[in-house]
Structures are given as C-alpha cells and as structure tokens.
C-alpha cells in the first residue's frame, strides 16, 4: 500500500507539449508511471513520447480513465487549467507551476473543496510512491520503497530527507510535496490523515518551514488522532524576520508561524523534533525498530 498513487494510477499531463512537460513526461515514463494522455489547447492530435495529446481535458477523459492530472502549465493559465480538470471530473490534481497568483490559488482551493477534489500544490515537486509511480519532477534516484511516509512543504528538502534515509537503507512508502506557496491547495493535516490510515507507513516525517500555521495545525492533529510516530523538522530557525509593512500579517498569525512556535507545538503533541536535517535518519531508524 501507499497513499494517493500506486502502480495502477492513470495520469494525465496538462501542458505536456511544453519543454518541461515533455522532458518530465519522458522521465516519468522511464520510472513506469502510467501516463495515458496529455492536454495542450491547440495541440490536439499530436503525440509526445507516444502519449496522445488532446485539446481539452474533457476529450482526454472521454477517451481514457484518468485518476490524476499533473499540470506543467504557465502560471497565468494555472487557474483555468485546474478548474477545467475539476469540471471534467478529475479527483486529484498536482500543480507543479511556480509563481501562480495567490488570488487564483484561493479560488482553485475553494472550488476544489466544493467539488470534493484534492489539489496538491502549486509549486509542488509532486508525489512519488517509490518503485511504483512518480507524478511530478522529483528525481527518482533519491528514493526507494520502504516504511517511511514523507510530507514536505519544500521540494528540495523532500529530496534531501529521502536520500539521507536511503543512505542508511530506509525507504519510503509515499513522498508528498505540499507546495511552498503562501496558500497550498492541500495542507499538511490532510496528508497526515492519509498516512495515518496507511498500513504500510510505519513512521511519518513532516518537513515544515517558517511562516503560516500549518505545522501548528498538524501538531493538533498529531496530538489527538495520530496512531503512529511522527518526526518533524522545521527549516529556517536562523532566518532573520523580513521587513514587515502593515499589521494584518502579524494579527492573523497571532504569534504563530516562527520556528520556535512550531517546534513547541510539535514537541507538546508528542512528535520527535529533529533540530537539524541530519538527525532525521537516526530518529527514523530508532522508531522503526
């Protein structure tokens, strides 16, 4: 088992004909990902790496069963593309695109919630269930199958944590990049819940960072519901606070958001906190045995 994706997952790639879409489709096919179709408006009828391209998501859905749509579209059309996928009935979307306007993300998130669909990202590296399926840009050589679930707000830190675990022989059930933007389509807690129900996942690593209150919310969930051990790491303890204009940001976070606040909340919830990245593998080893 794993969460979200496995070897049977059928994938659509929106923005498949662009440079990044094409390169990454090739990498994913090499890892055995079952990419059944692609979409680029105006490029219907083409093929990318033998994958048929359609003009609309609806046409793709009419021709193939599709579980997940992966999006490599430009930021200015990200909202349009995500809404299109939701309206075509796709239940999980992975939005790789960086620099999507946050007002667009708010609308996508609200619409996804309303339609009971899952939007991972934007600015996510994607999801990998090592050895079975990779949906996104994660370099597959950093991962191997095993019992640790990873949820990371940062893409590159997900790679580093997985690679460090692999170095001492510990693989991963599924690794999920949450996306690093101000607003994420899906929050840490939502993915924590999925790992909690997954029998194959023995330990979960949460890689957080300063800003926002997702880690504090995750701590609450860990305290009340989590039935397996959680290791948490927060990046950015030594980052000086930015120049702040206006008061609204400080008021809304209400004293949360700093590395200190997050670490305190996670410790109080019973999570093991790694103060530095390199402590994660030994903590995981201890908790698995």
């Amino acid at each position, binding site marked *: 088992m794993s969460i979200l994706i496995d070897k049977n997952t059928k994938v659509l790639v929106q923005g498949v004909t662009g440079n990044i879409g094409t390169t990454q489709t090739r990498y994913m096919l090499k890892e055995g990902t079952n990419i059944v179709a692609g979409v680029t408006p105006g490029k219907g009828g083409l093929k990318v790496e033998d994958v048929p391209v359609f003009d609309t998501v609806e046409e793709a859905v009419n021709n193939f069963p599709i579980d997940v749509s992966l999006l490599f579209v430009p930021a200015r059309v990200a909202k349009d593309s995500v809404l299109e996928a939701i309206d075509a009935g796709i239940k999980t979307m992975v939005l790789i695109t960086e620099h999507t306007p946050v007002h667009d993300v708010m609308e996508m998130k609200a619409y996804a919630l309303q339609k009971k669909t899952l939007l991972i990202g934007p600015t996510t590296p994607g999801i990998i269930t090592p050895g079975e399926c990779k949906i996104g840009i994660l370099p597959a050589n950093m991962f191997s199958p095993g019992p640790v679930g990873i949820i990371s707000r940062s893409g590159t830190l997900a*790679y580093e944590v997985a690679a460090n675990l692999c170095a001492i022989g510990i693989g991963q059930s599924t690794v999920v990049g949450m996306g690093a933007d101000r607003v994420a389509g899906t929050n840490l807690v939502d993915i924590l819940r999925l790992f909690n129900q997954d029998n194959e996942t023995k330990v979960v690593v949460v890689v957080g960072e300063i800003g926002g209150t997702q880690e504090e919310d995750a701590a609450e969930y860990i305290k009340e519901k989590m039935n397996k051990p959680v290791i948490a790491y927060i990046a*950015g303890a*030594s980052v000086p606070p930015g120049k702040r*204009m206006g008061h609204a940001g400080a008021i809304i976070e209400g004293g949360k958001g700093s590395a200190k606040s997050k670490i305190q909340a996670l410790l109080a919830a019973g999570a093991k906190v790694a103060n530095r990245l390199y402590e994660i593998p030994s903590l995981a080893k201890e908790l698995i045995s």
Partner: protein
Amino acid sequence: MRLHEYEAEEIFSKYGINIPLGGLAKTPQEAKQIAESIDVPVVLKSQVLVGGRGKVGGVKIVDNLDEVDIVADKMLKTELKGYKPEGLLVLKKVDIKKEIYLGITIDRTSGIPIIMISSEGGINIEEVSRKNPEKIFKLPVNPLQNLHPYQVISTVKKIGLTGELLAETVNIIVKLYKIFREYDGLITEINPLVITGDEKIFCVDAVLEIDDSALFRHPELNKKKLDAMSGRDKRLMKKGATFVKLNGNIGLICSGAGLAMATMDMINDYPSLSTANFLETGGGITSDLMVDCMELVLEQPKLDAIFINLYGGINPIHEGAKGIAKVIRERKLDIPIVAKALGNRQEETWETLEEVGVHIIKESETQKAVEFLAKLLGVKAK
C-alpha cells in the same frame, strides 16, 4: 510589491475612499505650496517602505505655515531605518474622535481572505491583538463570490457603530475588499480609519502590498517595479530567483527556498560562519542564470567561501554548472567553493565543476558538505 502610502492612497481615492486633502511633495518648496493651498495644521509623512514610521520620527504635525518648509527639509534628508524617503505626503490634519482599524489579508492555512475590524485603531494595534484579541473582529470571505454589503453589517456593528457611520463604514469595507481583489492584494489596510468630531470618515494611512506573481495583470505597477531594478535583478526576477542580502562571510546559492533555509541553519551553527546572503534559484536554472547568481554573490563584501547546494529535479543542474564554471574561469577565482549537486545528470554536473576546482561533495547529506566547508576554512563547531 509594497506600494508607498501616497501610491496606495491614489488607488483608494479612485475607489471612492475619502483621503484628507493634500499631496506628495518632493522638495520643501512643494511641501510649503501644498500646505498653503490646504492651510495648516498639516501632517507631514515620510514616504519610506518601512513599518512603524510614526515611532521613529517619520510623521510630524506642523501648525505654523512658516515652519512647513523647514520641517520638510529636515524630514526629506532623514533616512528612516536606513531608507531615504521618496518624498513627503503633506495632508490636512483631521481632528480625531475615533480611530478604527480595517485590514484585509489572506489566512494562509484556510486559503481565504479575512477582513479584520477593530475599534482600537492606531499604532498599537498589534499590541491590542496580543493582549485583547477579542477586540479584533474577523470576517472570512468566500473567494468564489463577491463581497456584498449585507455580509459585513453585523461585524461592523460589533465595534459600536450605528446610523450613518455604520452604513458608511460598511461601504468603505466593501470598497477596500474590491481593491484587495482587483489589485491582487496580499495586505490592504487602513489604520487608522478616522471618524472626526463632525462625523466624517477619512482614511489616514493606507497600506497596499501586491502579489508579485500577479504583476502581469497590473502592467503599470509592473513597469514601475522593473524601472527601479538593475538588468541583472530583472533577469533574476524573470527566472523566479530570490535574493536577500544578509552580511555574513559565506555566499550561498541553493535551488529551493526550504533547502536554502535548512542550509543557512547548518552554516550558522558555526560561530565564525554566517551566510552572506540568501539566494534561491527557483525552478528555472540555466547557464546564464547561474552566471548572474555567481556575480551577485561575489559582490558581497568579506566573503570567505561560496557554498552551492543544488538538486536536479526540474532544474537542469548540468546547465547551471556550465554557468558557474564560466564565471570561475573568466574571473580566475581562487575563493574556495564547495558544491553539493544531486539529481538528474549529476555526473555531468560534477565533472564540469571539478574541472574548475570546485570541491564536490557527492553524499546526500548537506551537513557533511557544511562540515567539509568548515574544515576547509579551519573553523570549529561550538
């Protein structure tokens, strides 16, 4: 992008929000002319992009017309928290009976706009939010719909407004929300919204911060931002790279903000090492981008070494390596450079960098690479 108060007020005014009479002065003479046309008392406000101006002498009230140019001259020459003012806003002083706080921002976790209202407006609003959070009323808004006046009334009533003032404040909030949405605001704020003795309402300080990712929808503001940037800064922004100056002795280039922060934390663990900068490349690495990144880092004073930490997921790190090598070759650099680069096409990347003398760490742990850097520089952990 943070707008100056005078720029924000221009926009607020366009949406029908009342601003006190006055204008922007670039010289003491202009300040005096404006004061003459609106009459004293006036408030002079330094136009710098820092918070808490009032507490560091950036806001002055002048009662005597003859003193306006003298005070203005001094204020125009005074840097606030290290920033030179772009000008002075000269506004008619309004008499204050009541100060209200109005703010709109995004709740990051739920991903929805939140309107905040308090009867305790003014410079101490953050203190109020810590000590008396019950005095700040919050109203979440559905981002899929417009905000309608009826949705706001009961929240505004909670701060004790009635009659005309209630109706007018509701209108102002609806307008402010419209600005927030139409200008892709991260924060829009009026603090204070002043109610005068004769029951008029004025916006006395305006804050508007706009989402940089949405500047393509606001070409005029985008142009303004770009005009203020150097060619290299423009190229970095276009590729999505982020640079912050930090004044330490280790130059830093990382692909990814999380990785950059974690790397900073490890480097800063050594008492005699600290990062000279934060530089996150984003997902658009090219050879040229890396040339710009290297040159920017090399401009930092008192550099003892450069530390590079890259992952090749979406980023073609083998291309990035060519840019790094080019700068090293052309400038005949002899500053120690330690690089960890893993992912797609890592072997080519290593080869390119090793050829120009970069110390390559092939293990996955950033910590090991930082330890190598420390050893190279002969510094010890605490």
